[in-house]
């Protein structure tokens, strides 16, 4: 077996493995590697590392590995072509190569290949990992990789120069590991500085983070075009911030009650919500200040232009709070769905792209006043205007039971596939209600007696194939917001009240560090909207108040979570999404760019600077080629340096003058530096003409040179 017991080789082995683990972690954390692939690779790598390493791989083993890699390569290409999972396939193949190399890592060359594979994984991580963990892992990787390179270099020298040198290297190398760690740290620091300078200053000509986001394997349930009843509740414990809202008007407290509607459904069947094909998708064009008006049947736009560039809301007669508005700028993370979230009741929306990638997004109207977006992977930013005021009970009563326009007839259709029991219940609840509001209130009152729980109990009826809503209404009478809202819609539909289900987010939490309102996944919620004629679609929430919000108990340490989210947001904004615009802004802030001074002449100036730089560079290159090879000994170089310094002050060495004679002459003229000069000349003579000059002699000569150079600096030119 190969002697891997030398401490140097063991340390090199460990570092080699560690760097590839860190690199793989940058990819795995971003979800770029399937769990099964990761587990398999980890298990095989551990086995490869633990087992005794043979001194040399046998021919048969080499052939087997070659065949395996070739087969994997073909499978990878086929997978990439057939499934379009190019990155996933490529990463799995890289993992296989890592495992193969770990099994056969006898020589320095093979460890170098491991380093190369690690760096490829790191590059892949840079593309898909947008988390703040990446720069931390990158910093650690730099140090570990530098140390691995250092150790591998020493081992490679031993392989190159023979066993005796290898043994010496193993001994001395491990003794000097403290110095090697320090050197690795210094190199990593240099690399980190280089990384930061290149990151900040390198011009951004590309199209942006085209692969940012969109890699999540979890599609967020509840916002697709169809929703299974019950899926929505699963995300209530996820504290991931998915939206950051910056209000552009009004002042708001630390916690808001905005209802940010995302998807809205009008048809239900056997546990599934979807869109009735009779409901049209609407999203207008040509609204004030570029806002696109969201479907309105009241005959006139609800938005009017405003000199402040934020459109105002038209007041609605009989609706006192109709002008209460929320203008907000939203940064929505890529959560794998094409829904845009706006507060109820949305009146207008427009994109606010930050760069060329986001400019490619296109909003389109979805059914039931949804707003969908076609965009490349990554976040998106937009603005919306919403009416957030709600009519009073008196105002709702005042409208009575308004007629339902033809366009909204679909919202009044009875839900099919349910038992008569549901209709009977709805009728019994509302038999005394004369207004639409009274009907809604009756249903809400009935549901308020139900229990809120995320652990959805299942009744025997449902186990036997019955509708889950019926199980909720008649058996368990317990469930989460989705069940409450769905039950309310179903009950109201059975009595002809135009109602629709809405999935979205309720409330937002102010992040004082980042100065924005954060909306977490755990804030997901379901409610209903009922059509009240002139008052529009009015929001009602049948879920008990205790179940509407996840509360601030979703993160374990709210303050720390706020800080982390603000840091992450800044990281996303200034690192991941750093573009040419931000670069120029940064340069302006640093005083490196004066926008006002950028006239046409200035632009020509930069061109001339560039041309001048090329010319100077060519001149230097030409001079460098004519430089003669200098083979001066160190003592001669020092002597020339001192002689040149003295010549600048008028003391030139004579043709036949020895250094000592010259030194005495200078000392006679300059008594203040006499000792230093004579001391240097004496030391120089000793070094220059001694039988053998030792390192100590050269060090002493250097010190003497420093002393005399400092003394010469005080001498005036003659």
């Amino acid at each position, binding site marked *: 077996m190969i002697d891997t017991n030398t401490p140097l080789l063991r340390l090199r082995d460990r570092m080699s493995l560690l760097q590839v683990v860190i690199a793989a972690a940058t990819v795995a954390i971003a979800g770029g590697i399937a769990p099964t692939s990761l587990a398999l690779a980890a298990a095989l790598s551990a086995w490869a590392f633990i087992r005794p390493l043979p001194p040399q791989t046998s021919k048969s083993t080499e052939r087997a590995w070659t065949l395996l890699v070739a087969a994997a390569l073909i499978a990878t290409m086929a997978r990439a072509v057939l499934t379009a999972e190019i990155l996933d396939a490529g990463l799995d193949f890289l993992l296989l190569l890592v495992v193969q190399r770990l099994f056969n890592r006898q020589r320095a060359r093979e460890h170098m290949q491991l380093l190369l594979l690690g760096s490829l994984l790191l590059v892949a991580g840079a*593309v898909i990992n947008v988390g703040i963990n990446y720069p931390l892992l990158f910093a650690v990787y730099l140090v570990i990789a530098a140390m691995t390179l250092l150790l591998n*270099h020493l081992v490679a020298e031993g392989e190159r120069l023979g066993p005796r040198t290898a043994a*010496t290297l193993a001994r001395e190398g491990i003794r*000097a590991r403290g110095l090697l760690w320090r050197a690795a740290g210094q190199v990593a620091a240099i690399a980190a500085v*280089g990384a930061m300078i290149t990151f900040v200053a390198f011009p951004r000509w*590309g199209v942006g*983070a085209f692969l940012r986001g969109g890699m999540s394997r979890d599609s967020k349930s509840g916002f697709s075009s169809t929703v299974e009843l019950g899926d929505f509740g699963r995300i209530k414990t996820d504290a991931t911030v998915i939206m950051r809202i910056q209000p552009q008007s009004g002042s708001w407290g630390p916690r808001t009650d905005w209802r940010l509607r995302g998807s809205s459904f009008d048809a239900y069947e056997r546990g599934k919500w979807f869109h009735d094909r009779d409901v049209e998708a609407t999203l207008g064009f040509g609204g004030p200040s570029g806002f696109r008006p969201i479907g309105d049947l009241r005959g006139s736009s609800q938005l009017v232009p405003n000199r402040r560039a934020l459109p105002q809301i038209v007041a609605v007669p009989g609706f006192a709070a109709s002008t209460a508005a929320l203008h907000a700028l939203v940064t929505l993370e890529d959560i794998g769905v094409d829904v845009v979230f706006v507060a109820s009741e949305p009146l207008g929306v427009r994109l606010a792209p930050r760069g060329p990638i986001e400019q490619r997004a296109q909003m389109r109207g979805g059914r039931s006043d949804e707003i969908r977006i076609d965009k490349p992977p990554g976040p998106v930013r937009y603005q919306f205007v919403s009416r957030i005021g709600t009519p009073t009970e008196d105002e709702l009563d005042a409208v009575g039971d308004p007629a339902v326009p033809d366009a909204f007839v679909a919202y009044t259709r009875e839900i099919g596939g349910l038992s008569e029991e549901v209709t009977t219940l709805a009728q019994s609840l509302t038999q005394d209600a004369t207004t639409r509001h009274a009907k809604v209130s009756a249903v809400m009152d009935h549901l308020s007696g139900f229990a809120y729980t995320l652990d959805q109990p299942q009744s025997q009826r449902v186990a036997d194939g019955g509708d889950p809503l019926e199980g909720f209404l008649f058996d368990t009478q317990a469930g989460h917001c989705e069940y409450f809202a769905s039950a309310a819609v179903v009950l109201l539909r059975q009595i002809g009240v135009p109602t629709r289900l809405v999935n979205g987010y309720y409330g937002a939490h102010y992040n004082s560090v980042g100065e924005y309102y954060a909306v977490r996944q755990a804030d997901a919620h379901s409610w209903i909207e009922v059509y009240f004629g002139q008052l529009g679609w009015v929001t009602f929430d049948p879920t008990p108040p205790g179940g509407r919000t996840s509360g601030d108990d979703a993160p374990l340490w709210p303050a720390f979570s706020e800080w982390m989210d603000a840091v992450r947001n800044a990281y996303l904004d200034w690192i991941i999404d750093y573009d040419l615009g931000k670069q120029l802004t940064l340069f302006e802030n640093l005083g490196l760019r004066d926008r006002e001074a950028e006239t046409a002449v200035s632009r020509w100036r930069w061109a001339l600077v560039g041309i001048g730089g090329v010319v100077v560079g060519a001149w230097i290159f030409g001079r460098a080629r004519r430089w003669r090879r200098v083979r001066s*000994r160190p003592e001669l170089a020092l002597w020339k340096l001192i002689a040149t310094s003295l010549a600048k002050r008028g003391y030139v060495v004579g043709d036949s003058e020895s250094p000592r004679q010259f030194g005495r002459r200078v000392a006679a003229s300059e008594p203040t530096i006499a000792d230093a000069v004579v001391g240097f000349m004496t030391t120089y003579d000793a070094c220059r003409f001694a039988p053998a000059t030792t*390192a*100590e002699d050269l060090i002493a000569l250097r010190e003497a040179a420093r002393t005399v150079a400092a003394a010469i600096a005080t001498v005036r030119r003659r």
Partner: protein
Amino acid sequence: MAAKAGRKRGKPSLLRRALTARGRSLEITRAGWLFILLTLAVGFAAINSGANLLHAIFGAQMALIVGSGILSESMVRRTVARRAAAGEIFAGQAAAVYVDLSNIDARGEVFSVSVEDDDRLATDDACAPVFAVRIGAGKTVRVPTTVVLAQRGRHPMPAAVVATRFPFGLFVKRRELARGEPLLVYPRIVPMPSAHADDPRTEIGDAPSRRSRAGEFFALREYRDGDDLRRMHWPAVARLGRPVVRELEADGDRQLVLDLAPGRTGETEFEARVQECASLAVASLSREGVAVGLRYGGEMLIAPGSGDEQRRRVLEALALVGDVA
């Protein structure tokens, strides 16, 4: 690692010549090429994709290359190497030398440096490379090695460089060393057939002369370096004003004067004769009671004598003998 004489070196590549200036040269290893290719690929991907973290990785890789250059330069700059012979050097035969590697920096250490022959120069001389793992600040390490110098005479050691692949093995940085003092290379010594060595009258050239009556006073002659001071003839010294010694009859039974016909240095036949002379002289002087002298071109170059000093004198003379073209 033993030096192998007669190794021809090729002309360095265009890239290597382009990366040579002021006594420094840079060579990119295979791993270095891979690293550079990876760096360029990452840079290309960063520019085209706009993925910001790729810019950071690209910058880090470029900085690693620069850092590697800075570290390797500091290693070769701090290292001073002097090579010296540890004993006699015979042409074409491996001779012991030592290399003193000194770290002239008072604070920093030197890692992983070697002293190697400059492979850009074609020469038949070769010195085995030496490697120092670590040289402390201001310290010197002495590393033994061997050298093979092809021709007799005064020659400097082969042109050498201080080289390092530190820190990562991506590049090889070399710094030329100043040529040291020339060394005296004795003619090659080959084993002589016993008939040659045993025959005390064997000469190369004309009739021998022989001194008999061993131990008796023979003549006065000039003092030569290495002579026994007890043979100094003080009255003659006082009279003549210069050191003279008593020359006694040969201590041994035999006396051998090697007569070497003149020739031109480098000519094959002449060199063969010189080699034979030297071999015979060494073989004879290694025996008890044999005095060896050297005549060249009819002139007695080295009077017969014995002992280590005589051996040295004869070999020195044979190392330098010959007309230079």
